[in-house]
Structure formats: structure tokens, C-alpha cells
């Protein structure tokens, strides 16, 4: 067997660096600096001179505060899983195109263009106890008491689902329809039923896309803020970690403590991403070799 020759040069390429400069500057100014500043801020509590972990200690010693981590996870994880499974199911079914595909796709991605606030208002109106949804069900005699779908956990789930689904669906549809259709045909010719084709050929190839989609949907869901306030119970069951940070910053004017909460939030998101990456590696180690889109 031949060894694969490594022709890559490690020399410093001035032109490449010059071309890279704008994006590098952007990342430095817009991400690295604010992030480091936030960390710095969080370590300088208002009432103490010099560096201290007091903000973090305070956060993790108050159940009302550290409980938001659990609340946020319990919203973000189920939402992400439901969004991912439904988007996968739909995108897989549409991978070879369907009747009126453009229209269907347009309708499915419509919520993206509406914005979170309008969407939340709509959900309040439609799914509220006096909304059409419950009125119709009561009118038809299917239920007697309205479903309580707003101002609680379910309301936030609903809003998150509607915000995240179109995006996730589009991403997976692009990913799945990029997989060579002859792979599926060749598997069928080798004796595989459609379910075996999905399990042994398509799913491993979709897995990298699923992992990316999971990561993005999770991170966005974890940062849920407006819909948690508008459709949830911001003082109770849906008091997410971003609400806790907001309250520290703009109700108690303690930027330092708010920064500490934001850093905790970032670490939670990072931890979840690491889990995804490790899981992906174990799932199919070969997928690092130019699988999927070619």
C-alpha cells in the first residue's frame, strides 16, 4: 500500500494572510473581544475590589438562579429533538422532490421571515384559551375545557418549534438531497429494503448534517428569550437562563453578575456541542473523509 504523500506547505503565505485579515478582524472585534470582556467583567463583582469568583458562587448557591440551567435544558433538548426528527422525516421524504415542491417549501419556511415577536403574538392569539384553536375544538364538541397552550412550558415549546423547524428542515433537505441518489439505488439492487437503505446507507451519510443541525438548533433554543417571556411563565416554569441574566443586567443593574450568568450559559452550550462532536466521532469515524456532498 502506498503512503499518501503530504504536499501541504507550512510556509507563511502573506497573500493568504492578507485575504484572511478582514474576517480575522471581524471575529476579533465582534466575538473574541466582547467575550473576553464579559469574562473579565464577570470576575469583578460590583461590591468587591479586584478579581473574585463571588458572582459564580452566588449563582450556584441560589436555587432560583441555578435552577434556570435545568429549566433551559428541559426546554431546549426536547425542542431540538422534536424539531430534528420531524425535519429529518419530512426532508427524507422530499429528497427526490415532490408534487408542488416549491410551494410546499415556501409555506414550510414562511415562519423564518416573520420574526419571533409576530410569531409569538400569533401563537398567543391562535392557541390561547379564547383563540381559534380551542374555540373550534370546543365548538366541535371534541373538548369541553380549552387546552392551556400559552403562558406555560408548552407555549414556549410551540414557539421554539415554529422558529427552529423551517431552518432545520431547509438545512437537512439541502444536505440529504446532496447525497448521490445512485447510492440508494445500488443498495436496493444489493437486496436492501427501503428501511435497511435508510439505516445502513443514508443515515450514516446524513449523520454529519444531523449533528450540525442539532448543534445549531440547540444553541438557538438554549438562548430562548422573547418567546419565553411572551408565551411562557417568565417568573416560574419558563424562567430560562437568559431571563436570569436579563434581570441581573437591566432590573438590578448588576452587569458583572449578568456577565457571570452569560458565561455559565455559554459554557452550557459549549458542553452540549462537545457531547455532539464526541457522539458524532463514535457514530461513524469514516465520515470525516469527504462523505455526503461531493
Amino acid at each position, binding site marked *: 500500500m502506498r503512503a499518501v504523500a503530504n504536499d501541504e506547505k507550512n510556509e507563511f503565505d502573506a497573500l493568504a494572510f492578507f485575504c484572511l485579515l478582514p474576517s480575522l478582524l471581524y471575529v476579533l472585534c465582534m466575538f473574541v473581544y466582547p467575550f473576553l470582556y464579559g469574562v473579565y467583567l464577570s470576575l469583578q463583582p460590583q461590591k468587591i475590589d479586584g478579581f473574585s469568583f463571588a458572582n459564580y458562587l452566588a449563582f450556584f448557591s441560589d436555587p432560583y438562579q441555578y435552577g434556570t440551567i435545568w429549566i433551559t435544558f428541559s426546554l431546549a433538548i426536547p425542542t431540538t429533538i422534536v424539531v430534528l426528527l420531524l425535519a429529518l422525516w419530512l426532508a427524507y421524504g422530499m429528497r427526490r422532490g415532490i408534487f408542488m415542491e416549491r410551494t410546499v417549501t415556501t409555506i414550510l419556511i414562511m415562519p423564518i421571515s416573520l420574526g419571533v415577536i409576530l410569531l409569538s403574538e400569533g401563537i398567543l392569539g391562535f392557541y390561547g384559551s379564547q383563540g381559534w384553536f380551542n374555540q373550534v375544538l370546543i365548538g366541535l364538541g371534541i373538548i369541553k375545557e380549552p387546552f392551556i397552550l400559552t403562558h406555560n412550558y408548552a407555549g414556549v415549546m410551540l414557539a421554539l418549534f415554529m422558529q427552529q423547524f423551517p431552518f432545520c428542515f431547509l438545512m437537512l433537505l439541502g444536505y440529504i438531497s446532496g447525497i448521490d441518489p445512485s447510492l440508494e*439505488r445500488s443498495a436496493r439492487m444489493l437486496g*436492501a429494503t427501503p428501511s435497511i437503505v435508510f439505516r445502513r446507507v443514508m443515515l450514516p451519510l446524513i449523520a454529519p448534517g444531523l449533528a450540525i443541525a442539532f448543534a445549531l438548533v440547540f444553541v438557538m433554543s438554549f438562548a430562548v428569550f422573547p418567546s419565553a417571556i411572551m408565551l411562557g411563565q417568565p417568573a416560574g416554569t419558563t424562567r430560562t437562563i437568559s431571563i436570569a441574566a436579563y434581570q441581573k443586567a437591566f432590573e438590578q443593574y448588576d452587569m458583572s453578575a449578568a456577565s457571570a450568568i452569560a458565561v455559565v450559559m455559554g459554557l452550557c452550550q459549549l458542553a452540549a456541542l462537545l457531547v455532539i462532536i464526541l457522539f458524532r466521532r463514535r457514530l461513524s469515524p469514516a465520515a470525516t473523509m469527504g462523505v455526503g456532498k461531493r
Partner: protein
Amino acid sequence: MNGPGDTLDSLKLGITKRYGNKTVLDNLELDIQKGEFVTFLGPSGCGKSTALSIVAGLIAATEGEIRLNGARVDHLPPEKRAFGMVFQNYALFPHMTVFDNVSFGLTLKPLSKEEIKKRTDAMLKLVQLTGYEDRYPGQLSGGQQQRVAIARALVLHPRLMLFDEPLSNLDAKLRVEMRAEIKQIHAALGLTSIYVTHDQAEALSLSDRIVVLRNGVLMQSGTPQEIHDRPKNVFVADFMGFRNFFKVRIASVSDGIAEGVGDGIRIRARAGSVVRADADMVMAIRPDDIRAGTEVAPGTENIRGQVEVVEYLGREQEAAIRINDNTRVWLRTAQSIRMADTIGLQFPIDKVVLLPAE
């Protein structure tokens, strides 16, 4: 179920495929016998790949049926037909090693691990890929990938092998080598094969029988020699390398020889029984069948013209010779030809084919 059994004794096709109003396959009828190597030949869009996909079960025919050993199989999904298929782009599973690719079909059967390994190893040996088991498709050359694809299909002992332009992604040299390998494997394993290609040389060298298709219509079916020497119509002749076509009116038919006049020249050809005088027909001849000489042999009817184009082909040259204002003749010869030479041409009577006018 009145099943067709495990082997193939005969395969009978009668299929039509339409997309909306467009007929892409117009009642293609064909009988294939055990051990035959049949090629669907035609330009892109002629329906050859569609026909193959219908036989495979990957797409459904609009009308008609497929009978395997007399039993209908056109309702069976592809995985129940036990046919093997090799795709143009190989279609190897990129996330599986060579071994896993080849053994994929075996793992779907109730076989022991040892049996799977034994059969996979034997097949890799047959296609000369022993030692490559742990490689991924992305680490193989095009020719190696195609051998994996062939092994993957063959390891299941398919009763029919389907090849969908398997060599068209390979470079010219490799294509000729793989062609020989496919032919050898077909003979060694006693396979029955259907092969799709647009390359007439591939079709001629591999096939027991060639089926020429055009716009979904069968133009001619026959042995390579029949197709090569005796095309039945202008389309097949054109596809098989007849480059010279003359629209003629038959002036006379005597002793089985027809004389045609048209395009400002007079040509003679062996005539079948159906040729009658005054019929409008086409006469065709290959560039390499024309005899050429700068000196006009006395006593023979000659056509003369001036060289307009010379294409150098290595051992030979192909030249366009202007006969008159409307007609050019393509000639292939090993003699040296220069631009503007005046050349005399002879059309050997046995090499001229007589075709119905389009």
C-alpha cells in the same frame, strides 16, 4: 407465488415508458437467453438507461411486462429481483470500507460471518483487490472503484448483471483494459448481462447481441457483425461509423446489383430482393472502405475530387474530398494525402450498403 426460480433461463421484455406525453421507450420487445451478453447502444436520451432501470426495477414501466422464465417480475421491487447492477459513477458507499462495500449484500442474507468473509475474500481476489479491504472508496482510483462495484454485485451470484455505462468515467486506456476484464468475468462466471453504452467500440467488442435505440425506438437488433456490416437504416449506419451518405434514385437493378444516381454521382451496391428501380434510397460507405489513388485506374468508373480537409489520426489520415458543389466524401487511408490534391475514389461494391430513405 408462481416464482421464477433462482436462475435465469430467459428474460422477455415488452415495455413502454412515458413521462407525460413524452414517450421515452416505445414498446421495446426483447428476448434474452441464458449466458447472453446484450448491449443497449444509442446516443444520450435514446432510452437505453431508462430501459435498464426498468429491468432493474428502479423505475416502473408505464405499460408492458417483464417475464423471467415465463413468470412476471415487473411488480417486484429491485431487492427481490436478485439482479446485480453496476453504475456509471460506481455508487460505492463512501462510509464503508472496500470489504464492507463488497459484503453489504451478503450481510442482508442469513449467512454466517465466516461464509461472508470467505465469499467476499474470494470475490476481491477475482477482481484483484486483495489487500485493499480496509481502504475507503475515496482512497481508490477510478478503475479500482469500478472493480469494487463489480465485485459487490457479483458476490451475490446475480442471475442477471446490469451495466449502466460502467466505463464512461474512466480514461481511454483504462476503459479498454476494464472492457477486457468485464468480458472475461462474464465468460468465466457464465453470467447473463445487459450492458448500456453510447460507445460503439465497447458494444462491438463485448456483445453477443447489440440493440440500437433511438428516441426510445428499437432501430436494429443483431450480432455485432450484422450491426457493423449490414446496418438497416441511416441512423444505425451513422452511429456505426458510416460517414458517407448519398441520396440516390435507383437507376437500374440487374443481377442483384443496384445502381444509384444522385448527389451528382453514380454508385453501385449489392441489392436485396426488395430493391426496385426508381426507388429513392440512401447509399452509405465507411471512410476506410473507400479505395483511393491519385492515379485513376483505367477502365473503372471513378469519382474524382479535390482534398479539402485532412485530419491526422496517427497511422492513418481522414480526408474530406470535394466531389461536386453539394457533395463531400470522407476517406480514410494510410497513404499520404495533402491538401488540394486531386484524388480518384473507388467504392467497392460489397462495401456499399443500401438503406431506405429517411
